[in-house]
């Protein structure tokens, strides 16, 4: 009975579609494929971020950025609800592969946001692109992901985070040109991000005539940094660059002051620890230290509004530094969908190749981290990196400093 009824309904619907197909233009053609979203069906966007394990705060933070972006859109895009589903990428290669495969196997997914860790993106992004799903990463910084030699399998990959090559060089220029230091030491934590940044820094620093006294490394889980700082202190560098994440950076910042011989050394870190949680972790010891980060000052108002929404929704301040990049990644995706989607009656068609091209064509999009413009290899971050200095007031209030201390441009 019910089955016959269902059959009849199906036939009627089918006939309706066929007629509609004849009556209107056929759904758009696309070399990779078209996602069809019927009336009332959601537009499915997937995130793949590290939301479990020791690096969970990074993923949770970026995910919240995406969620707030959806909230700002009222949960709807072109009249369809936005469905956000997520996978844990574990901040490692095998997690990235599994998460990407899961997303790729779901034909309803239109676009992805992620990954957090470059090591997860390397195997993951090609899998997504093979299924025609472009992905925008809010926090991958490794240069090879947008390298001209990266290969066509990364054609669907873009990012709103800064390429390490940009940020590491700015730090070195700042140290030499603005502070006038001659000697520097670096510390990384064995992550793809920090290791690359400090390598770029060291290269640029030497090119500009400085001397690197030592390049040290710690584990991200280390707590007692005093021994390694004591080792650094024996060579008396004027400047220490440690572009690492909140926990370890907090320990170093606090403990530098306790090591004899480093009391007057300049300290500098990167956007991986430019966040309120870092000011908690480092406390007053962070006063006076420098961070490189996108120049937020042009969009200060927008960012303030974001922080208010964040507090209201999650009951706390952002817990890691890439939430704004996450927000911007979502913004880019929405913008591109709006451009690429074709509406036929009540049905929405999203051609996959056109969506990818729309993402790559992003130009002058005003986000929280700056004006997003994508180059032909998917680097979309605003190239303007500024250097901020921490003041007692902003540490106390647990907010980022308002205006940059130094700009290279």
């Amino acid at each position, binding site marked *: 009975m019910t089955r016959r009824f269902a059959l009849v309904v199906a036939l009627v619907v089918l006939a309706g579609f066929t007629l509609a197909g004849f009556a209107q233009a056929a759904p758009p053609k696309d070399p990779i494929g078209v996602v069809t979203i019927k009336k009332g069906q959601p537009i499915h966007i997937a995130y793949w971020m590290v939301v*479990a*394990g*020791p690096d*969970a*705060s990074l993923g*949770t933070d970026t995910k919240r950025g995406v969620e707030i972006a959806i909230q700002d859109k009222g949960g709807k895009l072109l009249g369809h609800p936005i469905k956000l589903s997520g996978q844990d990428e574990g901040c490692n290669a095998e997690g990235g592969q599994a998460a990407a495969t899961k997303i790729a196997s779901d034909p309803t997914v239109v676009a992805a946001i992620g990954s957090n860790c470059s090591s997860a993106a390397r195997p993951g992004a090609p899998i997504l692109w093979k299924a025609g799903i472009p992905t925008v990463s809010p926090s991958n910084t490794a240069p090879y992901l947008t390298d001209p030699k990266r290969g066509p399998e990364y054609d669907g990959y873009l990012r709103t985070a800064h390429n390490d090559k940009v940020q590491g060089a700015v730090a070195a220029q700042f140290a030499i040109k603005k502070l006038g230091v001659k000697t520097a030491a670096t510390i990384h934590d*064995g992550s793809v991000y920090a290791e690359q940044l400090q390598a770029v820094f060291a290269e640029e620093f030497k090119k500009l005539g400085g001397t690197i006294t*030592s*390049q*040290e*490394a*710690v*584990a991200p*889980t*280390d*707590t*007692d940094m*005093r*021994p*390694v700082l*004591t*080792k650094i*202190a*024996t*060579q008396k560098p004027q400047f220490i660059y440690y572009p690492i994440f*909140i*926990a370890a950076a*907090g*320990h170093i910042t*606090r403990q530098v002051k*306790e*090591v*004899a011989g480093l009391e007057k050394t300049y300290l500098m870190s990167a956007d991986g620890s430019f966040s309120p*949680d870092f000011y*908690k*972790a*480092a*406390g*007053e010891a962070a006063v006076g230290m420098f961070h490189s980060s996108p120049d937020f000052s042009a969009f200060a108002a927008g960012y303030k509004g974001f922080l208010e929404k964040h507090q209201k929704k999650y009951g*706390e301040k952002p*817990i*890691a530094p890439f939430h704004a990049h996450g927000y911007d990644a979502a913004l880019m995706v929405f913008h591109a969908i709006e451009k690429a989607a074709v509406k036929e009656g009540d049905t929405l068609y999203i051609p996959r190749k056109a969506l990818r091209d729309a993402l790559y064509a992003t130009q002058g999009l005003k986000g929280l981290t700056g004006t997003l413009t994508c180059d032909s290899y998917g680097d979309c971050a605003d190239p303007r990196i500024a250097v901020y200095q921490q003041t007692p007031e902003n540490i106390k209030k647990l907010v980022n400093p308002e205006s940059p201390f130094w700009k290279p441009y």
Partner: protein
Amino acid sequence: MARLTRRKLTPTDIVMWTIGAILIALILWGSIATLARGAYSLDHWIDFTIFGLAQGSIYALIAMGYTMVYGVLRMINFAHSEVFMSGPYTAYYVAAYFYRSGLLEAHPVLSMTMVFLVSMAVSTLIAYLLEMIAYRPLRSAPRLVPLITAIGASFFLQYVFRGLYGSGFQAYPVIRALEGPMYIGPVRILKFQLLVIFAAALLMIALYQFTQRTRLGRALRSVSEDKEAAALMGVDVDRMISMTFMIGGAAAGAAGVLYAIMFKQVHFFMGFIPGLKAFTAAVLGGIGNIPGAMLGGIFLGLVESIGPSLFLDGLGITAPYQLKDAIAFTMLVLVLIFRPTGILGERLAVKKA
């Protein structure tokens, strides 16, 4: 039995000792090269030692919990690291409240005592529940089974606390009275390091005396020697096992606050690495042996602090502190080659561990 086999020199022994000798030679070579370069002054070495002692004291305190549980149940309580995390993470909110209300500045001793008590209470409670729910039903199961529940409980507790308090960091407030260095003769030491070393030593001595001198302590030891015989003598074995967990939990809770005083940050994953290290320390000292745990903890702390500079710097190896855990584990293997049951662990050698 063990002694009998040791008397005859087998080829295996020769190979093992050769490996040991090569390792020792490498260490000596590295050390001499480092000292000959003279990059470090005496003050630096003293600093390294103090850092190592402070870190080692905390390892030792956590190791007590592992070693006591091992003594009575012969099992690795993998979830002890989460017992260690739960106390100080919860007590953070008390400390933060005291800081906001100004009590911490006005009465640092009183308010820190409260923080200690809260932390110890929470850790004790978690340890008690852990034993009751996850281990007690498995008393008669094969010995690897409770190890798996321990691992499961460890995950579970981590993510419960993450759910409760969030995945971000919290930082203990700075206590002014404990900031800055002080001098004992010519030796420069940070005030809170002195406190940590001192408090840890006091706690460990108190615990040791407790197990050696008091009635309850004797009952505990009797259970760890022989459960059946202890039960026949009128000792309530289940209660004693619970008690062991609770004492270990309390020690971990105290260690947690000391850790927080020294490193400030607390978060849901903070227990994992110190727990692993403390467990290593307990094995190094001879697991099941309380003075061994102390010794193992201090030894490990010192190796981590001094080792990379002393052994590797002279060999021209870049970023030696990245390798500090590798050095620590190599030292462990080295110790175990010559003493397969740890530094002080003779007693358990023959028992099938």
